[in-house]
């Protein structure tokens, strides 16, 4: 098992999400940067939907009690096993008693730790993704333990895999016009296309607000479905990008829809960073 010696700033268990219950109002959840979570699993030859740890800003301290392999993907965060630095995107062998600690984050904010075979916390509604009140806990806690299956084999980097994840740390995000894009004035459409947008301090697993605003408006819509990556426009002109834990319906116009990859890009941005929207028409 993994024992949480220190929980870190905001560490959660995530998989590819809780699908099939959105018509019950249950958010899909899952890894914010799905690209990096799935990459971790593929490097370990796990199924894509195996559960991983999502670590934000300040990492936890983890103790492993069985042999296994792990891999670190996502934000460029320093990490070491028993004091020896470990690389990114490379499988690392773990012995019983090994302690994984994290240091400074250089680029991005969310790092993923994949474990051979996946983390085996309890499934709720077919998923291990943390989301209160569906799951009891919303983040890992000190002294908490989580199971995984011991792995004695050897999958250590047999071939050198070159991973290109630079796109995660770029400014550009690719978006599609949303169902209500057409409500926007030509001027606001231009502003979206030409301007840059700053991630506000109001950002979490539910939504990222952007600081720059469009014109105030009175476009209410009848409540309708939303998705992770949907950009809502509030009456005051504020832009809200819904993220993995977002509600399943909303009453604000959906002016843009992020591409799957761009949700991962935004998930690696912190308050004050800028993004540029590439609107694919």
């Amino acid at each position, binding site marked *: 098992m993994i024992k949480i010696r220190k929980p870190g700033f905001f560490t959660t268990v995530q998989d590819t999400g809780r699908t099939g219950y959105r018509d*019950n*109002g249950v958010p899909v959840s899952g890894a914010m940067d799905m690209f990096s979570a799935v990459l971790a699993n593929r490097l370990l030859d796990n199924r894509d939907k195996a559960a991983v740890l999502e670590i934000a800003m300040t990492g936890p301290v983890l103790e492993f009690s069985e042999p296994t392999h792990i891999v670190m993907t996502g934000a460029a965060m320093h990490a070491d096993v028993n004091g020896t630095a470990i690389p990114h995107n490379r499988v690392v062998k773990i012995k019983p008693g090994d302690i994984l600690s994290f240091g400074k984050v250089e680029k991005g904010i969310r790092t993923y730790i994949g474990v051979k075979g996946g983390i085996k916390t309890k499934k709720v509604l077919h998923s291990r993704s943390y989301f209160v009140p569906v799951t009891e806990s919303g983040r890992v806690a000190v002294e908490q333990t989580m199971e995984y299956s011991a792995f004695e084999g050897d999958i250590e980097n047999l071939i050198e895999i070159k991973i290109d994840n630079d796109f995660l740390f770029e400014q550009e995000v690719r978006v599609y016009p949303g169902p209500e894009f057409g409500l926007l004035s030509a001027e606001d459409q231009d502003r979206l296309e030409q301007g840059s947008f700053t991630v506000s301090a109001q950002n979490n697993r539910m939504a990222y607000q952007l600081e720059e605003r469009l014109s105030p408006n009175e476009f209410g*819509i009848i409540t309708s*479905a939303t*998705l992770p990556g949907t950009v809502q426009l509030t009456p005051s002109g504020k832009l809200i990008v819904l993220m993995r834990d977002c509600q399943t*319906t909303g009453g604000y116009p959906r002016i843009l829809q*992020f591409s799957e990859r761009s949700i991962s890009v935004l998930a690696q941005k912190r308050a004050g960073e800028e993004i540029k929207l590439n609107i694919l028409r």
Partner: protein
Amino acid sequence: MGEKAILVEWPERIDETVLEDVLRFRHIIREKYGNACELVPAYHSLLVIFRKLSDTDKEIKILRSLYPERKHKSLKRRLWYIPVCYEAGFGLDTDTLISEKGLTAETLISLHTGAEYTVYAIGFLPGFMYLGGLDPGLYAPRREEPRLKVPKGAVGIGGKQTGIYPQESPGGWNIIGNSPIPLFDVSAKKPCRIRVGDKVKFFPVRKAEYDLIAIETATGVYKIKKEEWHD
């Protein structure tokens, strides 16, 4: 809508016949696609979220060709009877609301329990139903300052709609009572038994009865009263 979903929209009206058409179409898509897609109906729209969607134009064509089949579908209809305690400790905004509207507590209760509501959408929170059909005498704007904590089970009025908070949550609706029935239960096979398109009626219970129902639901003894029919 994005890379994996197709949004189907009907004329922009809050209208039961529109919702029924949405639900009939949902039925057809469910039969055709099974678990290959997830469906989120609400008021006048249906979001079809595919597990894999490589050719959007082709799927749109298929959806268009399926649409006429909905006419032959009969819908299973259900009416749920939900107990609500309107007594003082639960009706956090009852006094303000009745003094603004010039009503008595009794008329508020009889207006709220008199109507048969339609579930137009489930969203905002797991198990939160948007119920249409509120008596216009009870329309009330959301509170200017939303509460940080609305208690679990709180029954509220927001604009022209009413609903129940399935969990403790922040919220701006005017709270007039509380229901002991859990609307969202992750330990159940179907965490939310009431579905979009179902009907809901409230009936008043005293505090003692409320407490009893709360115990009965916790032990699994309480059965929500419901009627079912096909149209």
